[in-house]
């Protein structure tokens, strides 16, 4: 069940400032469901891969210590308006999702 990903890119020269918000519960396995009283199983993103025109620019690995609905900000050099930036994640249950966005013209 894929939740949405939001992305915002700002271009300054050849530097793309990227902010990503990934919808994901990032369950620690230590939390109880308030309705049923049952423990909610561990469920977290393990890898996030970012590419610029299919070229890898950032590879993140993590565990349940990243906060719910993971937020990431990073800066990619060598970007131009119209380039395609893609963010893809995969989690501990084998689920995955991604987003593609065009780099906007610089301000």
């Amino acid at each position, binding site marked *: 069940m894929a939740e949405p990903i939001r992305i915002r890119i700002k271009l300054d020269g050849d*530097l793309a400032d990227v902010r990503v918000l990934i919808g994901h519960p*990032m369950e*620690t396995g*230590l*939390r109880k469901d308030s309705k049923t009283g049952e423990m909610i199983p561990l469920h977290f993103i*393990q*890898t996030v*891969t970012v590419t*610029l025109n299919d*070229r*890898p*620019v*950032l*590879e*993140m*690995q*993590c*565990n*349940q*210590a*990243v*906060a*719910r609905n*993971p*937020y*990431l*900000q*990073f*800066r*990619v*050099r*060598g970007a131009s308006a119209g380039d395609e930036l893609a963010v893809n994640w995969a989690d501990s249950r084998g689920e995955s999702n991604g987003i593609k966005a065009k780099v906007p013209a610089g301000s």
Partner: protein
Amino acid sequence: MRKARRILLQALLLPALALVPLRLLAAVWNRAAFEARDLATALREAGVGEPARSEDIVIRAPEIAENGAQVPVEIQSRLVGTELIQLFVERNPQPLAASFRFLGGTEAFISTRIKMGETSELRVVVTAAGRTWFNSREVKVTIGGCGV
């Protein structure tokens, strides 16, 4: 003739083969490091030896985090040739929280939010030009964020 062709094939294949394991390693989640329950094991499994402290690793995080479930952390490395940044929360149940590999000229900078179970040192290990360095910073946590 055949020998020459074989040598030519080998010459073409060798660089390709050398590249494959690196790409695969980068993509596979480092289970042993991320599941390690003590700092020494996490550091060892993450391939960290005994790095020296470097003030060129800048850690921006609140001195006091009221909510351990959402602690903003920003890391910047001014070390030339920074390839990898690894973030350890020393007193979390699993100390290694995240790693970031920078490729193709991406700035050695990351901003994210993490969970902290209690007051702890944040230890950041940077691999730059084949050497490792670290810096650390304490964040005091008012309400822990592991059971949320």
